[in-house]
Structures are given as structure tokens and as C-alpha cells.
């Protein structure tokens, strides 16, 4: 019996010791914080919104995926990236490389998830009311901006406004109109909550106003009778009157080395050479091994290059425009070996391409650089306002806004250049045509081309593609012919919903794919 007692004692003791441990079989997190830790302090709220910016700025978003779609995918660029050759020929489908990996779809939804989390959970946290208002406002702003990107790229998309739970991971596509309505609601809400003055990398409420103006312009499409033109004008005029933004004195200073977050910049995505989000602007645009990036003996990729017709249009229209030398690397480059290398237009072989110069960071050494990405700037607001005004009342009152941009362009060099001359004496139709071109010249490389060539409808888009195919220096050995049959043109107005989404989302079937991609 003694034996049994001893045994029983030992066993009960062991069980007791084990179960008395305070957090027995409870997981103790070491390397991550809880939602309480995040939303119960002002600093935690800051960290939460930084998380949203960090994601959308990263590789799949503005860092590389979005920029690749907005350039190469637009029909105005060429890429040397082999696996992405289907984008080069505008024959991409739902399994395109940049929809499979590092897809802006995945990236933007990932950032939306953060915004949703903040909007859902921050209000019940114990952070200060001021911080809550500001950060929740920014979350609405970012969510509006991200859905605005998505609806322009893909049309109606799943409209997720709450953090997902395991029971609602599937979601059907909303209509385009529903998404636009949500974008407007978010931006309106943001306007009432965000601060009136920006801080570094963090936009003010006028960013929401300006973006709202652009939303209405996009919604107006090619319809001169659309009430959205007037709505756009109201918002954009508010920005011009009250926003406090000014054009930089010279076009060049806007993209000058280390001159960032200027008063012209409305929404600027921040990058740093010491990592953080992975922005590939210098890497993807700058030519390889030239004195433009003297510290990078082996880089950069220089893979996303504007088509010849894009470059030629600008210099034919405005010979001597100071913006050309700021926007493009052309004619020749000096290699790091000291040798000169001719490029377009001096060279029309397969090396004969111009490059986008705006993002070249002379400090670039690796894939990272300090070069920020300006998502929205004041000149765009002025051009957009001019566009809206022209649609509503004709050109008379619209010239002033365009001419502000043109005059800054001329005075970018001393003595001031003769071109681009101020506009005057146009018909409404002429103005409309010119303003769309003007946006290409002023904003080349800034990820607006994709939308600008599509938002006025299939006919305008087809004309744009034909300009490329029929360009005088088009060389069939190197240049890719874009498809211009009606089916292809209509199909290309929207991007395909990524294959991964269709494969995993039971509420989106192949039949729900955008037209032409099945």
C-alpha cells in the first residue's frame, strides 16, 4: 500500500506542479503585438497607419507592380523583362507575371485590409480623440485612393470594408458604380477628418479633395453632358483656392535630387535608400551602367522604357520644351567605362530607346533609392480643372489653368524658353484633344498614362495604339505591334481579374472575368 501511496503522490504532484504554472498551456506572444497594444495609444495609431502606407508603397504596389502596369501595361512603353513579354505586346491575360506575383491587386487589397482594420477597431480604442480623428480620416482617404486605383484598373471589384473573418473570405464583385460611390464616400469622410496642413509624407485633407476631383473626372468619361464635370470643378477649384499648393518655380526642381515633398506635391509616396518599402523607380527606369547612376557599377535594370512615338510626339509638338530634357534620357548616354552610347533618336537599333529621367537618383547603388513617387501633384489638379472647365463652359476660362503649367515649363530654364507657348483661340474639341496630350507631356512616367488613354473610351484608345503602330520610326524587328481590332481594344480597357482571385474566390467565377479575358 505504501508503494501505491508514494506513486499516487508523485503523480499528483507532477500534475499539480504542471497545472499550477500560471499560464499553463496559454500561448505567450513574444514577437507581435495585439490590437489593444496598437489602438490604445496615439503612437500605436501612427504605427497602424504607417503599416498601410508601407504596404501600398511596397514592391507589388507603387514600388514596382503598379508602376509596371501603369507604364508597360498602358501601351506607351516597352519592357526588356522576358517573362513579362505578354504585357509588351498587350496580349496579357489573368496569369500575367505582374498579376501572379507582386500584383497590385494583391498589394492594394493588402493595404485596404489595414485601412479596414483601423476603421473598424480604432474607434473603440483609448487613443486621444484628435489622433483617432486624424488617423481614421487618413485610413478612409487611403482606402478611397486604393479603391479608386482598383476600379480604374479592373472595373467593379469586391468591395471589402470590414476585416475578413474565416466565414466571409469569399466576396463577389460589386459594380463599378458601387465602388465609385464608396470611393466618394470615403474621400468625403476623409475631408472632414484629416488635418488642413500636410506633414512629410502625410497628405492634408486637400489631398482627399483633389483626388475626389479626379474621381469625378474619371467618372465623367467621354460624356460632355455628365454632371460629374461640374462636381469635379467644385472640388478642384477648392484645392486651387484653399489648398495652399504652388507650382515649383522650375519643372526640373520638382525632380531634383533630394528635393522632395515640395509644395507642389499633394500625395507623395516615400522611399528610402535604407530600405523600408521597396521602390524600384530608379532601377526600372534608369539606363544601365551610365554616369547617371555613377555609384551603381552593375545596375540598374532600365527595363521600362517609353515608346518612340511617346517621346517624338512631345518634341515635335514643342521643340525646345525644357521639360523634355528633365523627363527623358535621350540621344546618348555616357557609360561608366567612359564610352559614349547613342540611344534614341540617334540610334534606332534595338538599343534605340529613350528612358524616363524623372526618377533617376544619382545616389542609387542598389535596388533601393531615396527617390519618392509623386502620386498626385498640383500641375495635375490644374490640368484636370482646365479639362473640366472646358467640358462645362468651353475653353475661355480653362486656358488660365493650362497656361500656369505651360508658363512654369518655359521658365524652367534661363533665359525662358519659347515653347510651350500659352494656349489661346481653340475650339472646345481642340482644347479637349490638346489637354489629353498635354497631360502626357507634363506627367509622363508618373503613372497617369494608363488611365488617360483609356478613360475617354475605345475609339480614343484605339487611336492611341495606332499612333504607335504607324509611327515613322517603328521598326518591326524591335518594336511590338499592338493589337487594334475592336475586340482587343475593348478588352484592353480593363485589366484581367487575376487568375489567383478567380481560383480562390468561390463567388467570382471565370464567367465573371472582364470581357475578352476568358
Amino acid at each position, binding site marked *: 500500500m505504501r508503494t501505491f501511496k508514494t506513486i499516487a503522490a508523485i503523480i499528483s504532484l507532477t500534475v499539480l506542479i504542471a497545472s499550477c504554472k500560471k499560464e499553463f498551456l496559454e500561448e505567450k506572444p513574444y514577437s507581435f503585438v495585439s490590437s489593444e497594444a496598437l489602438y490604445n495609444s496615439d503612437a500605436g495609431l501612427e504605427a*497602424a497607419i504607417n*503599416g*498601410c502606407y508601407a504596404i501600398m508603397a511596397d514592391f507589388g504596389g507603387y514600388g514596382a507592380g503598379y508602376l509596371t502596369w501603369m507604364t508597360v501595361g498602358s501601351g506607351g512603353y516597352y519592357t526588356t523583362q522576358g517573362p513579362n513579354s505578354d504585357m509588351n505586346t498587350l496580349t496579357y491575360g489573368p496569369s500575367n507575371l505582374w498579376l*501572379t506575383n507582386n500584383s497590385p491587386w494583391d498589394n492594394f487589397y493588402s493595404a485596404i485590409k489595414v485601412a479596414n482594420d483601423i476603421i473598424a477597431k480604432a474607434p473603440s480604442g483609448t487613443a486621444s480623440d484628435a489622433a483617432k480623428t486624424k488617423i481614421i480620416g487618413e485610413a478612409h482617404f487611403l482606402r478611397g485612393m486604393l479603391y479608386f486605383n482598383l476600379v480604374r484598373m479592373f472595373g467593379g*471589384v469586391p468591395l471589402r470594408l470590414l476585416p475578413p473573418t*474565416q466565414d466571409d473570405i469569399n466576396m463577389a464583385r460589386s459594380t463599378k458604380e458601387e465602388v465609385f460611390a464608396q470611393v466618394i464616400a470615403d474621400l468625403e469622410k476623409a475631408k472632414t477628418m484629416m488635418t488642413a496642413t500636410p506633414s512629410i509624407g502625410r497628405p492634408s485633407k486637400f489631398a482627399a479633395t483633389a483626388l475626389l476631383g479626379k474621381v469625378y473626372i474619371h467618372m465623367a468619361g467621354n460624356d460632355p453632358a455628365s454632371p460629374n464635370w461640374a462636381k469635379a470643378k467644385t472640388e478642384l477649384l477648392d484645392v486651387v483656392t484653399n489648398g495652399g499648393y504652388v507650382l515649383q518655380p522650375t519643372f526640373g526642381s520638382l525632380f531634383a535630387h533630394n528635393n522632395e515633398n515640395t509644395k507642389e506635391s499633394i500625395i507623395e509616396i516615400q522611399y528610402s*535608400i535604407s530600405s523600408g518599402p521597396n521602390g524600384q523607380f530608379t532601377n526600372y527606369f534608369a539606363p544601365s551602367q551610365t554616369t547617371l547612376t555613377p555609384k551603381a557599377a552593375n545596375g540598374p535594370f532600365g527595363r521600362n522604357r517609353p515608346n518612340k512615338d511617346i517621346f517624338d510626339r512631345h518634341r515635335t509638338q514643342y521643340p525646345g520644351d525644357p521639360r523634355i530634357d528633365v523627363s527623358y534620357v535621350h540621344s546618348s548616354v555616357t557609360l561608366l567605362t567612359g564610352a559614349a552610347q547613342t540611344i534614341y533618336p540617334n540610334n534606332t537599333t534595338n538599343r534605340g530607346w529613350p528612358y524616363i529621367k524623372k526618377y533617376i537618383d544619382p545616389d542609387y547603388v*542598389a*535596388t533601393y533609392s531615396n527617390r519618392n513617387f509623386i502620386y498626385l501633384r498640383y500641375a495635375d489638379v490644374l490640368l484636370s480643372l482646365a479639362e473640366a472647365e472646358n467640358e462645362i463652359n468651353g475653353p475661355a476660362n480653362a486656358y488660365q489653368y493650362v497656361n500656369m503649367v505651360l508658363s512654369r515649363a518655359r521658365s524652367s530654364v534661363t533665359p525662358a524658353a519659347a515653347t510651350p507657348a500659352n494656349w489661346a483661340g481653340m475650339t472646345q474639341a481642340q482644347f479637349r484633344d490638346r489637354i489629353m496630350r498635354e497631360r502626357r507631356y507634363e506627367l509622363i512616367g508618373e503613372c497617369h498614362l494608363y488611365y488617360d488613354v483609356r478613360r475617354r473610351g475605345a475609339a480614343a484608345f484605339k487611336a492611341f495604339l495606332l499612333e504607335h503602330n504607324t509611327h515613322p520610326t517603328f521598326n518591326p524587328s524591335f518594336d511590338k505591334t499592338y493589337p487594334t481590332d475592336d475586340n482587343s481594344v475593348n478588352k484592353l480597357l480593363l485589366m484581367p481579374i487575376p487568375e489567383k482571385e478567380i*481560383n480562390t474566390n468561390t463567388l467570382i467565377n471565370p464567367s465573371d472575368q472582364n470581357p475578352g479575358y476568358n
Partner: protein
Amino acid sequence: MTLNNLSPSRVFIVVFSLFLLLAPMAAFTQDKVEVKGYVKDTDGKPLEGVSVLRKANEKGTITDANGFFSLKLANANATLIFSYVGYATQTVKATDKAEMQIEMERTVVSQDEVVVIGYGTAKRKDVTGAVSTIKPKTQDALQFNSVDNLLKGRVAGVQVQQSAGDPGGVVSVKIRGINSLRGDNEPLYVVDGVIINNVTRDNANPFSTKTANSGQTKQSGLAGINPLDIESIEILKDASATAIYGSRGANGVVIITTKQGKGKPIIRYSSFIELSKASKTLPMLDAKGYASYINEIQALNGFSPKYGLDTLQDINWQDELQRTAISSNNRISVTGNSQDNKTKYFLAGGFLSNQGIVQRSGYNQGDIKINLNQDISNRIKLNVTLSSVFLKNSMSQSTEALGGGDNSMIIKMLVAKPILNDQVDLSDPNVPYDNPYSWLEGYDDFSEEKRLLGGLGLTYKFNNAFSYKINLAADYKTKERKRWFGKQTFNGKNVNGQLGLSQLERKFYQVENLLTYSKNIKRNHLVDGTLGVTYDNENLSISSVINENFFSEALRTDGFGYGQILYPYYRDRSSAEVFSILGRVNYGFKNKYIITLSGRADGSSKFAKGNKFSFFPAVAAAWRIGEEDFLKNSKTITNLKLRAGFGKSGNQAIDPYGTFARYGQTYYVSGNTLVSGAVPENIQNERLKWETTGQVNAGLDMALFKNRFTATVDWYYKKTKDLLQTFAVPPSTGYNSIVKNIGTIENKGLEFSFTGLVLNKKDVSVSVGGNISINRNKILDLGLDVSKFGIYDWEAYIGSNISNGTYFKDPANVFLVGMPIGMFYGYKTNGVFQTGEAIATVKQFGLPVKYGDTKFIDQNGDGDIGPADKVIIGNPNPDFTYGFNAGLTYKNLSFDVFFNGSYGNEVANGNKIRIANANGNTLNNILAESYYNAWTPAKGGNWPRVGYNNLNFIDTYVEDAGFLRLATATLGYNFSFKKGKFIKSIGVNVTGKNLFTITNYTGFDPEVNSFSFDKGRIGVDWGSYPNLKAVSASINLTF
């Protein structure tokens, strides 16, 4: 490469010093009578190591190299038991009048052999579950540096696959098929009682967040358990055997028991040297062939020829980058007991060096092992086990989710231009990345691992029936991995040199309280039982950091501080606990009927309240028909046992914190400085619970002709439900995946193994053995909605993309309810379009076709080829796998062969997408036959024309990968010396490994699975390391 800091001599000094310390433990004895004798086998050969025990209290000795023994006894009226593995046990009355002469008769499996069954042992005859045992021979143990490889082909129901093939690369072991759709199907390893549940855990890949193209070759987590120290390996296969391991037993359990000290002190020294080279090179185009091919492409595109054919210098990159590798293994061990038999020790130490056949790859390892048993009193016993290992590894870059192939040395070796004088200057230290030398010049992957594994156990014997044991054990491991990409590599080129460091620290400890009971009641009733309470705790820290932009590349992996773009340091720490109560009762009636009840209640920290605890019961019974009266005296059937059982076991192999809503760290930028951010990391799932496998097993054990022939047949059926799956979620949720319990899989199979002593004459014996396993798995439920896959409506999902680059960027597998796991999913083709066929209206992928293009089969008849035309084009699961061996001894000479093989499985030969098309990519060399056999209007044929490019996964890339391989063939000779000599015996062996393989597979090796731990990529060969063939010589000395 410097891998020689740990010299063999230093290891020996340490081992010897330990030996000297322990040797004086021999103590005083009171016994009076000395019994001496000699044990030989039926051929008259002396038998070494036979255990000689006095019946009553297990006191005894073992025979020396000449078969002699002497034992001091209190009086001569004792009975001695002589037992030896592989021989029938004998009981003989002792005598001190004359030297005893014992002749042992060989059997294949002894029914009295002790089998380790988890938290205890049982005699083979009393085992009710499906348990296989391997006792590795020295010559086999020397061939393999890790335990997992030792299992290959030797046990029915166990499938072993090499994933990377680099020495030190991880090996995948599956017992009875795939149970889980999660990554980890590895069995639980238990080494001398210490649970090792994390063999696939490796350092974090520092580059994973930076670029999707930078994979990292996985390394084995079993390092440090030296096969030469292993006494036995038990494989628990069915649920009645594994239920005692509860929530970790579902994938089977491999119990490794190391050697314990016994007998007079014996020193053994083994030395092994091996020469190995690639077993196969692929016939790529040579310089001339490649030049003609490229010239032909140039002509097709309207350009002038690129190469003159006369001045080309040929280079075969496969020969250039591979070598004849030299590996060695030296080990010394000391085993023995003190004269009073109260202290038993086994000490071993050694050094091994394993060179890879790809240049610069290989590893060096030194280790020390101590097993010590001490009787403190009649009631209290102490056992201590400790092993310590130091390992240094250098790897080449091979298999991973890599880009176009410039990121893999193996693929680069195949596709690089075979023209030496058309490369950039090779003496230039900045060799650009378009040439395979760059991987030699510009890449390092070094790791250093230190591991300490040890335990301490105290047993207290209350009386003859009850004893109590407490075991404390710990497994501590740290590993640093350093990967350098110099400017010669694509990654390094972009960033002026890139260095990633990663660190892993794993602390594991366990406490076990075990109470055992064993009693024979009135001869007819045998009862034994085990009751245990255990707790274990795992604490894991992983960290990594990257630096880039090195102004000097001279220091490579050691120059971390010279990089100028330092990335934020990543660190993650986690812990997991399991608390269990376990029990087992064995009841035997009349030595004929045995029933085992076992169960384990596990509580795990990984699950939320309410789901933390689960109970895993099992029951099994055996009927020893051979003991029934009608068979008892049979001369033919010496043993016949029928076994049946069923039970439940679990799998909790998920990362901790799955039930939490976690926020992870990130960084944004403000004014070019970093500011920290936090982002939600997962979709919370509080409902997570165990994955449960229910299994039924029935088996028959048979022994014929005095155990000269044995056979075992097992049938099983198992069903795993609530599969823990990392389930891909729509990207529109903002997440990639959720961990969920969903779906059901079944595996059923038949296993057969046999051994036989075919010939057993004086001087000559012939033995054979073999096994065959048939497993069929089927997905029963995935928890998905039925949706459209081409022309079918399936409940299914598609596997992961194979690579991120140009080639093979599509997934290869589909997981489909009603079918085996991982069926190949792609396009069916039917040769190429031949001249004269009507092709004017034919479209493929929206484009018109030409003669000589691959002809895809239009499954849906829509007149075009697209993703909707994909169908099932193959099955990666074998019909059966097998292994067999044969041994011949003639006097002192022995010859053993071991074959293994597989039948009916297919492999997606991914390299073919790149090298089996004469697609005209000038950066690619291709297989000679894909150029020479290419379709031409004159010649016709079924290889696509020159200039035709196909990037789709098609049926011709799926190949039959069945094979039969002569895994090892060993010739041995054993010298024994007369008693009293310093050296007792010398054994010499010569072994050939992989001497031939019969297969239709055209890649490097049919036994390949490049992504063996990724259940989304099954049966794919993507840049895997070539297999090797080797010859080795070894010598074993006994002193």
C-alpha cells in the same frame, strides 16, 4: 572555403580522455566461481558480442571477439541464457568443471527480441501493432551520414526522398503515404526518448521578403545523430502503435535507440573513405552543335550566322562544375561495463567530411556521444545520455522557387553556352553572371550548427512489479547561416554584393514521469502497464538581416560591416508547450492472446480554450496461432501471429499563435528615415484544432523452419479528417492564406516484408530479404465548392507555381476530390503538326500555327487552345515501392547487395521546359536531341521545330519515373585473431553505391522531389542536384 577547424585528432583526444576518466569505475566483486566458455555458430565460427546472462537477476557479460566469455558466479548451480541478435536464444546449465561449448543456431528474427515501442519496450512476440525494426550494420551505417537515408528502401511503408541532394540537404520521410495537405508529413522522431518534432525547421531565408526569386535550399534538421551509434530504429506505423504519441503520432514515429555499454571494454575504430561522382550527365549540345543551332536560329530571323564553326573551344559545364568528391568518416567508440556490472558506458566520437559532387559543396562534422548507465543501489538506476555535435556546411544554390534559372547553379550548369572562347574573360574577378563560374566565384552558403542533445533518467524500483522513472531531457541547437551573393551573380550584381545572415536557436526540454507495472500472474496472465505524465516546451528564436552594397567584396560572408545598405533586423520568437497524460496496458493470456489498450490525452498551447485537449485512444489484439496446440509442435511453422488494431492519432504541426489576431512589424519612411509600422498578419481562427487520423491495421507475422524464414503482411486503412491546411484565400481579403481544419484524405495500403536464410551450410550461407509497399491515397473532401476546371466540374484546387521566372511558371499539380493527391495538370499533346495537315484555321493560344509546332489537343473543341484545355496528364504517386537485399557469406568473406525501387510513379521533368525545346533563346543551351531530332519538312518527326517556343506544362514533360536501383553492393572480409592479441578483429569492406539504375526517366535521377516539403508542388524535378554513384572502402578495427 575553410571547413577544417575541427581536426579529427582533437576529437579523439577528447574521447580518450573521457574514457580514461570513466575506466576506473570498475569495482570490487564477491562472486566465487568462474564459469568460462566459448560460443560459436553452426559453422564453428566464434561469435562476438553474445550476451551471457544468469537467469535470476540479469547479471552477465558478453563474448569477446574470439567467442570467449568468463563469468563469476556465487555458485555453479546457475542457468545461463545465451542470446544474440539473429540467433536462437539458448538456456544452458552452467558448469565450472570444463570450458562450456555453446553452438548458436542462426534465425532471422528472434521472437524474444526486445522492441522499443514508445515509453517502454516489449518482446517481439507480444507486439500487437505494426512495428518494424532496423538494426543497422556498421557497413551500412558508414554509407550514410544521416538516419533518414538509412531508412530508404529498407522498411515496408516508408518512403524516403532526397529533396536537394546537396550533402546536408533535407530528406523527406513519409510513413504510409501523405496524410496531410500541409507542408509537413514528416514522422515524429524520438531519439533515446527525446522528442524531435521539428526536423524540417531551418533558418529563415533572409531574402524572402526582398525578392521572390531568392530561394534557399533546405538543410536537414536531423544532423547530429550518427548512424554508427544506432543500436536500433523502430518504426511505428499504425495507430495502435503511435497513439501513445497522441497529437504528434499521425505521421508515424521513428524511435532511434543508441548503443548502450555492455561487456568487457572494447574499443572500435572505423574508417571510411568514399569517392563519388555524378551518376549521370545530361547530353547537352556541344560547342559545334550549339553554334549550328544558334546559326540556324539567326538564319530563321533573317540575320547572318553568329559563329564560325572552326574556332570554337568546347566546354562541358557539367564536367567543369562537378568533380569526383572524396568523403571520409572516422569514428572511435568504447563500450563496456565495470567488473561489478554496475557501470555501463558507451562513448563514441568522430569526424566526418562529406564532399559534394558539385564543387564547393559539402560538409564537415565532428561529434561526441556518451551513454552511461549506473546502478546506484539495488533499487535506483541512473542513465545519462549526451551527444554534442558541431557541423559546418557549404551548399550550392539549387532547388527553390527560383526565377528563370540564373538563380540556380544546377540549371545554369545545363543551360550555359558550351563555348569557352565565347565567354567573357574568365580570369576577371567580376565574372558576369551569365556564366556558371559565377556560382563558384560569387556565391557562398555557409552554415554552422551546434547541437547538444542529452537526457538524464532515474529509475526507482519499488518492487518486482512497479517501478517509477523520471526523465529529463533537453535538445539545444543553434545554427548560423550566411549567404553571400557576389557581383558575379544576378542578385549580387544588382546591389553590389548582398549578404544575408540568419540565426536559429531552438531550446527544447521535456519532463517525463513514467510508472510501469509488469507481472506474471499464475503463469497464464501477463500484465504490464505504463502510466505517464509528460510535459515539453519548445522555444524558438529566428532572426535574419541583410546588408548590401559592399565597397569591398574581399571578406564575403564575414564582411558584414562593410555593406552600406543595412536592412532592418528581423527577429521572431515563439514557444509551444504540450502537456500529456498517457497510458498503456498489455494483457497476455496463456502466451497466446494479447490485447493492448493505449491512449494519450494531449493538451497543446497552440489551440484556443476548448480545443486545447484531445484524447487519442487505441486498441489492438494479437493471437499467436503458432502457440495453439495444433501448431505448437509443427516443424514447419514456428510462429504465426495475427494482429489487428485500430486507433486515433493526431497532427498539430502548425506554427504557434494560429488562433491569435497578430500584428507584424513593417517600416515606412518619413524624410528618408524609417518609421515603424504594424500590420495585421493573419485572419484569426480561434476554432483551430488537431488534425485527426483514424487507422485500422491488420497484420500477420509468420516464421517457418525454425525461424529461418519470416514474413509479415500488413493491411491498413486510414482516414485523416479536419486536415490542418494552409488554405489559399482570395487576395481580395488582403491575405494570402488562412490556417483551417478542412477536408478529408484516405490512405490504404498493403505492406509485405520477408527474410529468409536460404542456405545455411558450414562455411556458406545465403540470406535474402525484401519488402514491398502499396499505398493508395485519395482526397475525400476539400471543403470547397465545385467549380469549373477546363471541361470538368471539380471540387479541387490548383497547386503552387513551380517558379517565378520565364520557365515553368505554371503550377504542375491539381488536388481534386476523388483522386490521389497532386495529379499533374496540364496540356495533352499529340506530336507536332506535319506537312500537309490542314492548319490554316488552327489556332493555339490565339495564334496561328506552323508545321513543326507542338500539336495541343483541343479538349473543349472551341477551336483554340487555352487554360480551359488543361486536363490531368499524370500521377506522381507510385503504384508500389520496394527494396530487397541478398547476402552471401563464405568463411570470412561476405557479399551483400541491396536494391530499391519504385513502380508506376511519374515525375514532371521541369528542366525539359527549358532544355527540350529548340526555342532559339540564345541564352540557353539545350539537349542535343532536341536540336538534332527537331522537326524539319524533310525529316518530319515528333520533336518541335527549331524556333518553336513552348512555355506550357505539357504531357511530354511528364515522365515515367519508376526505377530499379542497385543501391549498395558490399564485399567484406573479416579477420579474427587469437585470444590475447592486441587487435581482436579487423573487418574490411568495399562498397559500391548506386552502381546502376534501370529507369526510363531522362532527367538526372528518377528518385527526385525538388519541393518535398511543399505540398503544392509534388513530384517535380526543378533544378535538382544530380545523384551520385560512389565506391568506398572501410576498415573496422576492434581492440
